[in-house]
């Protein structure tokens, strides 16, 4: 699988580390809602098809990325810096 890093360009997957589901949202730090924390830590949808996920380009620019990948075909439709995705989510835009 080749991931096209926004900085480094296309690189083999061996340079990257998978860092998990990028669709879940963390509860407020002060939250006492145990069910919400449990869901954040343990619950994963495990969908087929398109999925948003975090990857770290550890063998290159060492940036965290948000990759949108079809988990059935490995086709990648989008790769952005995670910080840009976070800003977009915060401001309500689609990342």
């Amino acid at each position, binding site marked *: 699988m080749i991931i096209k890093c926004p*900085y480094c360009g296309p*690189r083999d997957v061996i340079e990257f580390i998978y860092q998990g589901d990028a669709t879940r949202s963390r509860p407020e730090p002060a939250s006492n809602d145990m069910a919400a924390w449990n869901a954040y830590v343990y619950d994963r949808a495990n969908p087929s098809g398109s999925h948003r996920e975090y990857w770290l380009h550890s*063998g*290159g620019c*060492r*940036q965290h990325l948000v990759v949108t990948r079809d988990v059935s075909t490995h086709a990648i439709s989008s790769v952005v810096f995670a*910080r840009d995705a976070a800003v977009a989510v915060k401001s309500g835009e689609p990342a």
Partner: protein
Amino acid sequence: MAEPQSPLGASYVPGDHGNAAAGIGVTLRERKGLSIIQVTAWSEAIPAMLTAIGSATGLALQNKPGLGRVAGEKSVFGFAPGRYLVVSATPELETRLRSVIAPDLGTIIDLTHGRTVIRISGPRSEWVLSKLFAIDFSEHAFAIGNGRATLHHDIHANIQRIDDETFDVYVFRTFARSFWATLGHAAEEVGYRVE
């Protein structure tokens, strides 16, 4: 000042090696006596940082991925957003950078004693490096002066293209002897000279 010891030690054997009878495909040497400084800009201060690096070194860069420049023993290249390696043969480099880079622009880390720089040059340098690193070394994809950050197995490397057939490879000092041995094996096929 004490003379820094090369980590390559007894593995650095000057002379011709491998299939040298058929010609020298690449020449390898360790670049010594360099100051190697990593400069990191805060995300909003990248253009100002590039201006500051330009005023300290005379090598001004545009803010584009992997761009770099080389002038003699001096070089600068980007290897990640807002991160640059600045290299010069003068021990004053860090002082010069500190005089123009205030903390509101970013940070400066002296990596001189943490990196080993291996220069590979010659008509087969692209071929030999392509055996080790899964990136495109052709000149249209990797222009002169530009930099890359990549891996050979788990040995992280920064690579800068110096001219059409010369590259500098920056590896962690503690991995340098292992990498040097691997590079020698990769170059045996084309014949190599150690200077």
